[in-house]
């Protein structure tokens, strides 16, 4: 079973760094999704929340851990010097 932990262990070795983006790109690299229609085709110009929901749905189908294992607060701010 391909778990988030497995992926992160792989990502933390060598010159590659731990990255949620990298984990999500891994979702898209999976063959299992190849036959499904694209999100853009499904939702067109729908509202932002529908577009995000479609992305979340797609990610959770392949790797639910990426959706549920997130911290409740994510910091954006960091102060310059």
């Amino acid at each position: 079973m391909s778990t988030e932990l497995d992926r992160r262990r792989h990502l933390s070795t060598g010159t590659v760094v731990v990255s949620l983006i990298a984990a999500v790109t891994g979702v898209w690299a999976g063959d299992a999704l190849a036959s499904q229609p694209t999100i853009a085709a499904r939702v067109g110009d729908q509202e932002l929340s529908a577009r995000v929901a479609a992305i979340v749905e797609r990610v959770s189908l392949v790797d639910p851990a990426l959706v549920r294992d997130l911290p409740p607060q994510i910091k954006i701010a960091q102060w310059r010097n």
Partner: protein
Amino acid sequence: MATIGPGIDTAAPRLRLLVLQPTPFCNINCSYCYLSNRRSVAVMSHATLDLACRRVFESPLLDLQLEVAWHGGEPLTVPLTWYEEAIALMAERCPVAVQLKHRFQTNGLLLNERWVRFFAQTGATIGLSIDGPADLHDASRRTRSGRGTYDGAMRAVRLLQDNDLAFHVITVLTERALDDPDRLFDFYVQNGIKDVGFNIEEIEGAHSHSSLASADVETRFRRFIKRLFELVWSRPGLLVVREFESTVGLLLSNKPAKDEQNLPFAIVSVSHDGQLSTFSPELLGARHPRFETFALGQVVVHGLSDVECAPSFRAINNEIRRGVEACEHSCRYFRWCGGGAPANKLFETGRFDATETMHCRLTRQVVLDEVIAGIESRIGRRERPYDLCGLEAP
């Protein structure tokens, strides 16, 4: 404690970031700096630090993990021996159940082997301020005599790398950087920089004009973010960009975003002379016609619960709450933003209860737009990631 806002659990621990200003002094003179007193060579006394620790560690708002951000001025202008004593003091005062994590944000010019050993021993994390290749970096980050600081900053990069010490970079984006995301990406990769956060040139404090405030900048900023996302996505794991990590995290989270800058006492800032503040750390030391100062207390006499009762705190908190509520009612990005940064609202519009700012348009709205569109455009595609941008495989 008194009620501090709708929807906020007043009893819940939320104090997770303590910003300490060991000195306001900076050894360089960046063109976009917001600090007005960066020539002052005053240094926080250990007695003041001791009182600051007491105020924070006695607070019921303290969470189980506390990040301590040493942020000046330039923190490394204070002698290393001062920090050795300071960190020992903090460890001694810290409740057993609370884990401290020290962070230093530095221009790197004074970094040497002794500092590196200290960072390694204390487990402190280091952020270097580097604006990209020499021409971009030296355009803004100069000494008071006008010399560029690029060579010194890159010497710090090599020193940290030679000692296997992880670090991140903060790059301030000015208008001149927007048209060349490929060159910035290549700069990080070629120099072994793996973790970067982008701050924009903000209108804040002593810096009252931004090169990003002109009419065509949003379009160029959008192109910059779009291309940078393509580059990062195409070579997964090679470069971590804080804005993309945060945004994807927000998109995949089951809970709406909260901006800790809007939550009273989620961040506590203490100046070198013991003044206490909360909300955006940039507020401490700033002045404003309506509020005068944002120093809401003094560690010698005030605990955090005293600050909460002060009329000035209530006035600021109420206005910030109104601003967040206005964002919630008017902005389609609110679910993934949490209401914007109070300091940017104030310094751009003159009020905390404003909604949209240049800062939020660029750092929240545009980034969300481009990350969502970037992910959508790739769903269902099966090409190898690095094919997307015509790059060589890693």
